[in-house]
């Protein structure tokens, strides 16, 4: 809500040149504070700037108040990132980027969540379709789908061990420290994102398009294949990306089920062992220190940034094309 208000405020306050001027002034102010060794001082400058812009918007004193509060959150989100980038040690980043251990970790961090996202979509899209249509007892199913969103993820890991571990549903299935266990844990925590985004995609489709497909001869499956899935494709894709991104950042469930993972590493063409990025970074931090963990984090941050941009570009496409 506050970002929308701010958007309105900035939009009415001026043009691109004003935005550029504000950003430049902020960069100079931050640079001066940082070089003077008092970065804390910049927080005051940023809040005052936000308050001033809010006051100058068509919201007046109310704009001043909400912009000032909004800026506090922006600072909390943005400043760690800025300071992180400024304090990175390029040598360590380069070293991490060339490390085979990091390569294995990155491969696992792309591959494991990708499998989890595909599994979440394979079984989540049919469920999303049913939820979008509605059925008796839907509330129970919805609660179950959303359960991973509210369960602490270490608890999710424990649930998976109970469900699929040695005395669980598939006693022969080895899940501790295996790719299967990793994918199970990641699917468990990320599937609500896949199901809910796909469901929104299906819900946005006018019922009459299904009626039209059926009346003109399409069976329910043909209607699903030729009309509903193509029209919900953006929601399904967004769901897959969200599930992937959520999986990449998973720590709790993975730490319980698959702290270290044995997997086939095609670069070396042999089985290998590594950890999912969050576990790997935590390990690096505890065993080597903040600077080393920061270097690996920088590489992961680039990866996450690319995913974020991909999701944003899809969202923008949605806004442009309209319902």
């Amino acid at each position, binding site marked *: 809500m506050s970002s929308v208000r701010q958007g309105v405020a900035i939009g009415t306050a001026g043009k691109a040149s004003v935005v550029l001027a504000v950003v430049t002034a902020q960069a100079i102010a931050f640079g001066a504070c940082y070089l003077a060794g008092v970065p804390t001082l910049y927080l005051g400058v940023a809040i005052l700037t936000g308050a001033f812009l809010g006051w100058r918007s068509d919201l007046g004193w109310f704009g001043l108040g909400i912009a000032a509060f909004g800026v506090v959150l922006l600072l909390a989100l943005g400043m760690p990132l800025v300071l992180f980038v400024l304090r990175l040690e390029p040598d360590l980043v380069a070293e991490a980027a060339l490390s085979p251990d990091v390569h294995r970790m990155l491969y696992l961090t792309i591959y494991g969540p990708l499998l989890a996202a595909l599994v979440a979509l394979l079984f989540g899209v049919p469920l999303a379709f049913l939820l979008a249509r509605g059925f008796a007892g839907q509330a129970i199913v919805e609660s179950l789908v959303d359960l991973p969103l509210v369960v602490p993820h270490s608890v999710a890991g424990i649930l998976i061990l109970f469900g699929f571990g040695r005395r669980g549903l598939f006693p022969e299935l080895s899940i501790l420290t295996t790719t299967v266990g990793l994918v199970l844990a990641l699917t468990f925590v990320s599937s609500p994102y896949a199901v809910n985004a796909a469901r929104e995609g299906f819900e946005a489709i*006018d019922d*009459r*398009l299904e*009626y*039209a*497909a*059926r*009346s*003109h*001869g*399409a*069976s*329910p499956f*043909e209607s699903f294949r*030729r*009309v509903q899935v*193509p*029209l919900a494709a953006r929601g399904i894709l967004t769901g897959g990306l969200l599930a992937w991104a959520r999986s990449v950042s998973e720590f709790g469930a993975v730490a319980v089920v698959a702290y270290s993972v044995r997997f086939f590493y095609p670069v070396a063409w042999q089985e290998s062992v590594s950890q999912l990025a969050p576990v790997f970074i935590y390990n690096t931090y505890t065993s080597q220190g903040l600077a080393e963990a920061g270097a690996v984090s920088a590489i992961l941050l680039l990866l996450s940034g690319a995913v974020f941009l991909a999701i944003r570009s899809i969202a923008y496409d949605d806004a442009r094309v309209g319902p």
Partner: protein
Amino acid sequence: MSLEVDVAATFSATGAEPFEIEVSLSVGTGETLVVLGPSGSGKTLLLETVAGYHGHEGVVRADGEDVTDRPPEDRDFGFVFQNYALFPHMTVRENVAFGTRYHPEGRDPEALLSELGITDLAERTPRTLSGGEAQRVALARSLAIRPSTLLLDEPLSALDVPTRETLRTDLAETIADVTALYVTHNRTTALELADRIAVMRDGQVVQTGSPDDVFEHPATPFVAGFTGSNCVPAVEWADAVADGTVAEGERLAIRPEHVVLGESGATATVERATRGDVGHRVRLGREGTAVEAYTTDPPAVGDETTVRFPTDRVTRLQREADRD
């Protein structure tokens, strides 16, 4: 192909009273039956029920064959929607050809595009079409499967007036030989397209007949009002009828174009006169009630004039005939 419908269904939605429809009607081969009724009368639900989208009691027969238990795709009905319901991810050509995959006996999409004058739109997507163009595409898509019956849900109502008039004329030609069930709230459309009209209210058909029957001889005060007739208490307007005999509670229905002014009959005051496409429409008040009439020579507002209802044009209705 003929269509016989005898259905009853109840529809419920959150926060609304359950709505029931109970309708019997039949459409002869090549006939266009227009279901005419106000918003909320259940016209669209009726059409969707016939199409097989909603469960119902009773029976739907196509050409004598019971299709009640068949899913929509096996009923062989084309459906044209008010909002077109074109597939937005397909081109016009793909939309028109959509059903031919399932209906090998269907028509050549290219020929239909040409017949409906939309060949030049073939590669466009629905988002780039005007309302009139989109509705032609929707019509072509339905005709392409060579449906036994065409179901049309207010296909003209979302269009601007000139487009609606052009398309209405084209539609009349296109569906002239097609068995069609057409629902609308627009009486001009009903008059122009219908072989027969069924007037619907609150989920039930209250009168079925030829356009002349329904418009000239409404069965209830509701039908009279909805088809544009005057419908006034007989006691107040007894002098306007030739023999002057009226019964208590009786109502007189007469179309505005049949009301005769300035010759003889009941005295009424001109309350309003507005210029129309042809002549003037005047409102004549008498004892708290009013009738509308057309004239080329309108008296001044406030003047008194005489009003006569020709005997052969007036329909006598009982108030009780209306469920209100």
